[in-house]
């Protein structure tokens, strides 16, 4: 390096006698036009109750991308009570963004990504333990595709659809009960689904394979409701063991092959992937999301909304390659 540097100086000086340019100072006016780009913020905050300190680095970036990966697998280790070889998060044929019918790439959009570190203050030893890290986005919009085999986290899915979809799944006895509850084909029903254990109907945010209504949750009628729609709030119409009136209310995650991230075409906040050594409440503005030990993905409420047909029948995969195996290789 020294030799090169010396040679470079020597080389430049050979030509210096042939140059007549003069360096002149920039005046104040020109200097005032020079701006530093403040595209990084660093924030520090504390959770005194849990002895946690947070350092968050935010990047002022707008990102548009279309990508595919054969496998995204985080936190693969054996845990009692879960299948051998399972992982905290496992998604095969993962993709962000999609290709529309005209052959245009519709990218997945990300705004202001950030990295946040959590430090655990050990009051006994005074040590600072690095307790967690998360990568998140100030906003996200677009299609997330893949076969979700295991998921740890918070992926609240809003279900909103017409009563007709329920009638189509119901038998004669269920039809009568729904009619009595004032549900018509045009009634708009809603429910909240979350990661759930298919066998028990209990919430199960760790290595879940199903999403659905947890025990005790009811369908709600919000539009075109009959006078007795309050009956939907009674216990006998609440979900128990992944069923309401005998209709399945829990569905394999692998059914949902392409998820629309975003809220009515706008970017949603709060999408993040984290890894922590203990339960940590990550904060986004006034919202707080408690992530469990290990790998964790959070898709905030309002991030995904499906209709009943999609819930019952799944969401087909969108095209993510120009030569796509899910479309016969073309």
């Amino acid at each position, binding site marked *: 390096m020294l030799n090169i540097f010396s040679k470079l100086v020597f080389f430049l000086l050979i030509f210096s006698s042939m140059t007549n340019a003069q360096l002149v100072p920039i005046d104040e006016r020109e200097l005032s036009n020079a701006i530093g780009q403040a595209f990084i913020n660093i924030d520090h905050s504390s959770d005194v109750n849990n002895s946690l300190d947070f350092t968050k680095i935010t990047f002022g970036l707008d990102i548009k991308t279309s*990508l595919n990966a054969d496998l995204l697998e985080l936190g693969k280790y054996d845990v009692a009570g879960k299948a051998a070889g399972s992982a905290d998060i496992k998604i095969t044929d993962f993709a962000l963004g999609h290709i529309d019918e005209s052959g245009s790439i519709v990218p997945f959009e990300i705004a202001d990504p950030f990295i946040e570190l959590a430090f655990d203050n050990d009051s006994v030893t005074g040590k600072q*333990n690095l307790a967690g890290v998360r990568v998140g986005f100030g906003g996200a919009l677009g299609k997330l595709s893949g076969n979700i085999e295991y998921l740890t986290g918070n992926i609240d899915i809003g279900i909103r659809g017409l009563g007709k979809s329920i009638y189509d799944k119901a038998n004669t006895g269920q039809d009568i009960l729904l009619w009595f509850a004032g549900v018509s084909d045009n009634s708009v029903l809603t429910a909240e689904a979350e990661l759930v254990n298919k066998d028990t109907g209990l919430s199960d945010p760790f290595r879940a394979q199903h999403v659905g209504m947890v025990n005790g949750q009811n369908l709600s009628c919000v539009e075109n409701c009959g006078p007795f729609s309050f009956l939907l709030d009674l216990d006998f119409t609440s979900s128990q063991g992944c069923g309401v009136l005998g209709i399945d209310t829990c569905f394999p995650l692998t059914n949902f092959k392409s998820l629309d991230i975003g809220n009515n075409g706008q970017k949603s906040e709060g999408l993040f992937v984290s890894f922590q050594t203990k339960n940590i409440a990550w904060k986004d503005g006034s919202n707080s999301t408690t992530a469990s030990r290990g790998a964790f993905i959070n898709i905030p409420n309002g991030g995904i909304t499906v209709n009943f047909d999609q819930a019952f029948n799944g969401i087909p995969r969108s095209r993510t390659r120009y030569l796509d195996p899910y479309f016969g290789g073309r």
Partner: protein
Amino acid sequence: MEYLEAERDILIRILEVANMKIFFQKLKARLIGTWLLILCSNFSYSDLETLTDTHLSDIDGAGIGIVLEDFVFNAGETVNGGGTFEINGLKTSGGDDVTIGISQFYIAGPGSVQGANATDHPVNIGRLVNPFNLELRDGNDVGVTDKAVFEFSAPTKINGSRLSERPNMGIRFDLDIAGTRYQSLENHIKSLSIDGSYIRLWGGNGHVEGELALNINTPEIQFFACDSFGNNCGDTVNFRDVNIELQLGSGEYQPVTFEVDDTGNFIFEVGTLAGKCSSVNSTGGCSSAAGSQDYKDLAKYYQSGPQSNVYVDKVIVGGQDFGSTTISNLQIQYLEVKSHDLQ
């Protein structure tokens, strides 16, 4: 008559650079020597003469090989009498000043004990028979038609570097916000190899285009936090057996570009695959004939185009094993990254 001897490789050797002080002492000595040569150059009258065809035929254009022997870089307050490299001008979202101090940064050989004994443990970066290379390549060999391609590449023997040629690296960041010091964060990388990495650049459509391959292989990456003075450090987060293969861009078929717009913000792009197929079917897929060039190019891209992989065998925190992490065969069909002001 004087002839300029053609050299196959110019090997740059920096011997016995024990630390930055010695480095700069030598630099100063070399500069003095250079100035003396320049002063004397007015009195020299030697002519440059044309190479004969015989001599010219000996030149194979192998480029410049770079090897750093017995190399140590060690900077920070513990070795330079309190000097700390600082990054200023950052803000919090509330507008408070942020300073990031880099109070230690080292590149050394095995036995450097997380930088505590870096100066006595030099490392060879590159090997004389397998150096880092600066060269101009024939673009036709790397997917860029009829253009010269500048390439800077790491040694090519992937994961084969001898232990003495794989440096340990480390850095310590200290966070200061509005005059209050918070935690420091240390990162140490053992026995790092970037063999097989390269960056290629060429002239594109009015701008520089390129492609990038970055391979990272290390048996261990460590992170841990300490108090604001770098003491009383907590549990270590260990990433064991880390293998990362990152490939961005594929010649002129999918070039990577980096530009700065008139507002001063940067734009980084990995070229889109949209429009690579001359005809699409009703679902947006490529419907060109299987024998057509655009179909074959696309098929080749998906089969063997740029792919990125990440594999971490174990993540261990305070003795707890959080298992492996894998991202395999990641292909980026399009990427645009634009910066903007946060304030």
